[in-house]
């Protein structure tokens, strides 16, 4: 997978506070995403973004994410996006604002936070099961359904379905590999 920065360098951070003023900006992002090669992982550097509101997050994060999910469902386009350099609460409060907007849209995105990760938005699943598996993938970096079965005492079918859901939501990547003993299996990978 190739990692690519989504925003070019701006002298001043951009405010995401007005949807109408962000139309061209969003279009530039969408063009970059749609023109990129398969298996590209986009990194949205939030250091280039200052104050935000729901409409701004919707244009610049939720809509591109929704587009990636739909492109995968419709055309099996393999592209992903995650966030880095979120501003802390006392400054631009990115995590809270992103979480609020993605909850309304029932979307979820991963953010890299120093050496760890944060899950922002609505992930779904019953009793936190999807969240638990997502955290497992990001702590291990690579897992198979069999690893999930061993770690959480689940049925293989359940583990496969749940990993597949996270993959469809563009939260983890997937690679099909040849097993030494014959047959093939999916390896699910964190985006960072």
């Amino acid at each position: 997978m190739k990692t690519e920065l989504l925003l070019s360098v701006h002298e001043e951070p951009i405010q995401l506070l007005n949807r109408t003023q962000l139309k061209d900006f969003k279009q530039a992002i969408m063009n970059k995403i749609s023109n990129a090669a398969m298996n590209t992982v986009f990194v949205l550097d939030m250091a280039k973004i200052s104050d935000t509101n729901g409409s701004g997050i919707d244009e610049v994060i939720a809509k591109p994410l929704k587009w990636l999910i739909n492109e995968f469902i419709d055309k099996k386009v393999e592209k992903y996006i995650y966030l880095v350099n979120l501003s802390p609460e006392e400054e631009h409060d990115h995590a809270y604002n992103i979480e609020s907007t993605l909850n309304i849209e029932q979307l979820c995105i991963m953010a890299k936070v120093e050496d760890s990760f944060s899950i922002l938005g609505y992930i779904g699943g019953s009793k936190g099961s999807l969240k638990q598996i997502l955290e497992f993938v990001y702590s291990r970096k690579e897992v198979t359904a069999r690893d999930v079965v061993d770690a959480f005492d689940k049925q293989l079918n359940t583990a496969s379905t749940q990993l597949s859901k996270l993959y469809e939501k563009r939260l983890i990547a997937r690679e099909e590999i040849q097993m030494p003993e014959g047959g093939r299996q999916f390896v699910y990978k964190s985006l960072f």
Partner: protein
Amino acid sequence: MEIKINRTLSTIEDIHQLLDETMKVVKLLNSDDVVTVNMQRLRYITPVGLTGFLSVLDYLEDRLEVGIIAPIDINPIKYMERMNFFKVCSENVKEQFEEQKDMAFIYNRNRNNLVDELLEIRVAKTHQQIVEISTLIKGIFKNKGLKGNRLSDIQSFITELGNNVIDHTKSSCFIAVKNNEDENEIEIAVADRGEGIYNSLKDVLTVQSPHEIVEAAITTKASRLSDEDRGKGLMDIKQRAFRWSEASVSLRTNNAIYEITKCGVNPILEGKNSFGTFFWIKVNYS
């Protein structure tokens, strides 16, 4: 013909009464007739009341010749001056106050420099102005020690409601924020004199009653611009408001005041059909 202003203009109920009175009188007038706004009885006005009053004046002055009878009590005039009313109202209104009262005395009072503390009435006509006002107000509350999430909420209330006014109406946007420090309470009012939520949405929704349309505007993604996948701003405001320790959200649009709760939108007082949408958010940060 005369529109009489009550003794107080401080709540959304007061704005509702003012709109009722205004529409009752306007119905009887032809364009270019004279209407007098009689403020003699006014004793108490707040920033919230001022947003409603400014939007009514804006509406009237577009259609009629407007006369003013200033309040007898000087205190509301002093407060209106302190809130920058005379900087944002029309020259016509300002001149009539100056003819009737010693406004030079009021204008020349000693003012402490409270630019970073006092939340005066603001009027915006562009998205950029909305953003600037929200940034200024966020800065003021940051200096007062309000926490990050709550600062984001306040900025969202102002920008989402204000940008809606610019996007969906041809009206100016009147914004007031009042900090009741003794009660740890913040009041935010955003008013316009556009066509109102019902008229804006009635042709694009399958539900037809005005109350259903207003409810859909607040609780769903209903929008005149749904082809652009819009209409989430009011849902976001509702979600954010009820994260505060206490919150009340109400609006006056079409012919009614609506109370917005966590679970729904309820009409609480009906009156005459009028122009404008008036949001009033009260949040407590105890």
